[in-house]
C-alpha cells in the first residue's frame, strides 16, 4: 500500500514537470487543465512508470546517470571511427562485416535492454538478437569494432544494475 502511494506521488510529479515543460505557460486555466490531466493519467497508470519504488531504484537511477557520460564519449569516439571508414577511398578493404555471438552474465531484463541499446548506439555494432539469459548476437562492421565487446561495457552495465 505504501509503495503504491509512493509510486503515485512520483508519477504525479513526473507528469506535472513534463506538462509544465511542454506547455511553458502559467495561466490559471492551463495550469488547472494540466492538473486535471495529470491526475487522470496518474489514476489510470500510476503503477506503470515506477512499478516497484525502493531505495535500490534511486541508487540505480543515480548510477545510471554516472554511466551516461562514459557511453556518450564511447558513442562520439565510435562515430568518428565509422566516419573515417565511410570517407576513406579504400572502404571495401577496411570493412569486414561479420556476426559475433557472446554470452554475458546479465540476467535482469532492464540491464539486457540497456546493454542491447548501448551496443546499437555505439557505431559499428548492431544488436541482432538479445536473449533473456544474456546471449547476444551482434552484427559488426569491422574487426576493431567487434573486439571491444562485451568487455568494459558489460562490466559497467552490470555495475549500474548491481549484478
Amino acid at each position, binding site marked *: 500500500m505504501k509503495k503504491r502511494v509512493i509510486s503515485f506521488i512520483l508519477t504525479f510529479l513526473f507528469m506535472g514537470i513534463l506538462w509544465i515543460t511542454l506547455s*511553458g505557460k502559467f495561466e490559471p486555466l492551463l495550469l488547472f487543465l494540466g492538473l486535471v490531466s495529470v491526475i487522470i493519467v496518474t489514476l489510470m497508470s500510476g503503477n506503470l512508470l515506477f512499478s516497484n519504488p525502493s531505495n535500490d531504484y534511486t541508487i540505480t537511477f543515480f548510477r545510471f546517470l554516472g554511466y551516461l557520460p562514459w557511453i556518450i564519449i564511447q*558513442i562520439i569516439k565510435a*562515430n568518428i571511427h*565509422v566516419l573515417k571508414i565511410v*570517407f576513406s577511398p579504400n572502404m571495401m578493404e577496411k570493412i569486414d*562485416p561479420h556476426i559475433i555471438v557472446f554470452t554475458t552474465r546479465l540476467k535482469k531484463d532492464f540491464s539486457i535492454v540497456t546493454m542491447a541499446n548501448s551496443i*546499437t548506439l555505439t557505431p559499428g555494432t548492431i544488436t541482432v538478437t538479445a536473449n533473456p539469459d544474456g546471449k547476444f548476437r551482434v552484427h559488426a562492421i569491422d574487426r576493431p569494432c567487434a573486439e571491444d565487446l562485451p568487455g568494459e561495457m558489460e562490466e559497467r552495465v552490470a555495475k549500474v544494475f548491481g549484478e
Partner: protein
Amino acid sequence: MHILINSIVIGLLFIGLIFFTGGTLGILRMPDFYTRLHPAGKLDTMGLMSFVFAFCIYNLEHLTWDSLIVSLKMLLIVFFVSLSSPTATHAIVDAGIRAGLKPWTKKNKEG
C-alpha cells in the same frame, strides 16, 4: 560574448553537417543492407544531436524563461531520438535476419 556563442554554434552546425554527409555517403557506398544500416542509424543520430545542441545554445543567448523551456523541449527531442533510433535499427536488422537475408561478408560476396 556574441561572437563566442556564434562561433560555437557555427562549429557545432559544421560538425553536424559532416556527420550527416558521412551518413548519406555511407548509405550509398556500403555493400549490403546490414552494413548500410550502420551509417544510416547512427551517424544521423550524431548529426541530429550536434544540430540540436547548436540550436539550444543559439536559443539560450537571450536567457529568458521561454527560451529555457524551448531548449528543454529540444533536448527532449535528442532524448527520444537516441532512444528510438537504436530500437528501430535493431528491429530492422532482426526482421532481415528472420526473413533469411544473408549478411554480406568478404568471403561470400553475393550476400
